[in-house]
Structure formats: structure tokens, C-alpha cells
């Protein structure tokens, strides 16, 4: 599977609230040190696109199709995914999972 074909999904160990203006996520996969994380701007938008597993290209398509379509959606999608990955909020989909959804 190439990096472009890698699908990402929300970690099953994350609780979150989203009032439409901002997203606050909480990792629950480790005991202690559970600090809620505020997702802002594109990171929040990318998070919302991950209601189902998505590749970076699909996330970029979502960004490009928004009402306030963003410039350079591919770069933004990747940066959003990187930020979510770094925060431990998304995980790589096991092969086959995306196709089964």
C-alpha cells in the first residue's frame, strides 16, 4: 500500500466534543495525564472528515469541496493528518478495513 493509499481513521480510544465551532478531543488509551486537546482550524476540519476512514487524497477532496474551499488542500490535508497523528488522535486503518466500511 503506497502512502497515498493509506487510509486514516479516528482512534477508537478518543472521546470528543464538537459544537460546530471547535473540537476538543481526549485520549483515553493511557491512564493518567489525560489532557483534553483543542483542535483548531484545518485540524478540526480534517477531524470532521474522518467520520469514516479516508486517505489523504480524500481528505484533500473534502477540503477542496467545502463552501470556503481552501487553497492548497493537499498540503493542508497532510498537515492536518500529521498533527492528528502526532497527537495520537488518528490511526492507520488496517488493510481491508476501508473497503469494508
Amino acid at each position, binding site marked *: 500500500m503506497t502512502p497515498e493509499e493509506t487510509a486514516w481513521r479516528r482512534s477508537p480510544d478518543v*472521546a*470528543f*466534543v464538537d*459544537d460546530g465551532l471547535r473540537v*476538543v478531543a*481526549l485520549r*483515553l488509551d493511557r*491512564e*493518567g*495525564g*489525560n*489532557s*483534553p*486537546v*483543542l*483542535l*483548531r*482550524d*484545518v*485540524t478540526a476540519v480534517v477531524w470532521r472528515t474522518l467520520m469514516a476512514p479516508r486517505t489523504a487524497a480524500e481528505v484533500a477532496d473534502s477540503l477542496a469541496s467545502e463552501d470556503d474551499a481552501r487553497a492548497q488542500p493537499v498540503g*493542508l490535508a497532510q*498537515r*492536518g493528518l500529521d*498533527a492528528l497523528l*502526532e*497527537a495520537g488522535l488518528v490511526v492507520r486503518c488496517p488493510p481491508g478495513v476501508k473497503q469494508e466500511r
Partner: protein
Amino acid sequence: LAEEQTATLRVGEAVELAHALLTRLAEIEGVRILFIKGPTAVLMGARPPRPSSDVDVLCEPGGMEKIGAALERCGWRRRVPESAKPQFVYAAKYLFDHSVHYIHDEWPCDLDIHFNFPGFFAPDDVVFEALWERRATVEVAHWPVHCADFLGQACIVGLHALREPEAPRSRADVDWLVGALARRGGAADQLAAVVQRTGCAESLEPLLRRTGATVLPDAWSDTDDRRSWRSRSAISGAATTAWWLELRATPWQQRPGVLYRALVPAPEHFVSGHLGAELTRGALLRLRARRLMRGLRAATSGWRRARTVGR
């Protein structure tokens, strides 16, 4: 792209996320918990929608220590430390000791961990099992959490309201329950069965009367608990009454100390825990002044109530 950052939580966000956090910790510790009141009661249709500022959970008997220790490992602490001097020595018997409050500097909500719920006269384990068997699962913060089902929540919301039956919010909650039970065919009779099993027929009587449910007498007759319920209901919503009761029972030479504690309590006894860290001296003074004014306004009615209790 703004970087992610540790969030300054809003109350509503904190309340929802705390449901998920508590559920996860309870799962790790192998302790059964049921969310009660708050958002889950609203989701079950047993309470009118309104924002919550704390999280209420009923913990299975014997699980409190594990949950407390797990919370403390996550930075939560008891709102009033065990080492702190209790406010009431003599009047405590008229009040309900039923939960432990936890607070966290970064979370603007209290966690209220109940080891029982006032008004249920059956033993704690009987009550918990009765509610657990009927539990529902709902999503809060996109996380599945166990809560009391509609009838369980109805008992709890009703009992909570009937502790202070004259309060406007209590009246609204009871009215809501009467309507919600009427809309669900047969719910009042099903409620009666839960009531009998958990031993809250007497404490829920004002609600049951309005629903037309017939409740048989229950087997639980802990007279101390029932007396405490009657007294607490009689002095409902009146901290002033409790202070009068305390003062009345205290030996004369110790009364100045009680009076001082009543007028100038330690902050943890009257300030919401999550405000404590950021409260300025001026803000604390304003809170004290407001509390004092409320107390003075309620002094006469509190005295009258105190005279009817415990004699």
C-alpha cells in the same frame, strides 16, 4: 495551521468528556458505575434539558476507593480533603452524606461520585443491582457510557427534587417527570416496581401520588435513614437551618467557634472547586459577602425550621 494545544475547557465540554474519562477509568479498574442525573437523565427523557456543571455517577458498593485512586492518578483531588475539618459535627446527622466530590484545576466541572443516593432505603447493593440490571447505554462525547434507564433516572431525579420540594427547579423536575411518565403507557406501574425494590416509596410519595401508581410497602425500614430523610426534607435548601441546628447542639463555650465557621468558612466549603485556583482576593471577598447576605436573609426562616427539627 494552528497547532493543537491543551484545551481550556468550557463547562459543557468538560461535563461530556468527564463522562468518557470516568467510564474508561471504571473499565480499567473493573468497577461498575452508572451515570445519573445530568446529560444522561436528559437523554433518557427523565429531566428537562438544561446545562449541567457537574457529573454524577453512582458507584457500585466497594468500588469507591479504586475509582478515587484512579482519578487522583489523573490529577483530580477531593474537593474537601479528608483532613479538612468537617463543617458540621452535630447537624451532620440531619444532612445526607452520600458522595465524594472531585475537582481538577483544568476541568471546570465537579465529579460527584455517589456511594449511595439519599431516599433509597434498600441497602446500597440492592439499589445498585436494581438500577444496574435496568441500565441503558448512551453516547456522551462520542463514547458509550452506562447510565440508569428512564425509570431509574426517574427515581433519582424525583428523589433529588423531593429533597428540596419547594425549590422552583425541583417543582419543574417533578412536573416534567409526571408528564414523561404519563406519556409512556404503563410506565407509572413499572416505576412502582422499581420503587418497591429499591425502597423509596415513602420518599417518592409526592411523585407517585401524582402518577396514580400503586406501591406496596417495602421491606426496608431503616428508621434512622427515614428520619434523616424527613428532617432533610423539612430543612430543604437551607444551609442556614443546619447552622442553627449546629449552634443549638454545641456547648456554650464552643459556640463562638461555630459562629465564626458559619460566618467565615474556609473557601473549600463554599467556593466551587474549579474556581479556587484562579480566584482573586477581591473575588473571594465578593463571594463571601454574597453568601453572608443570603444567610442573613434566610436566618429567620432557618431558625423557624430548626425549631421543628430534632426536638
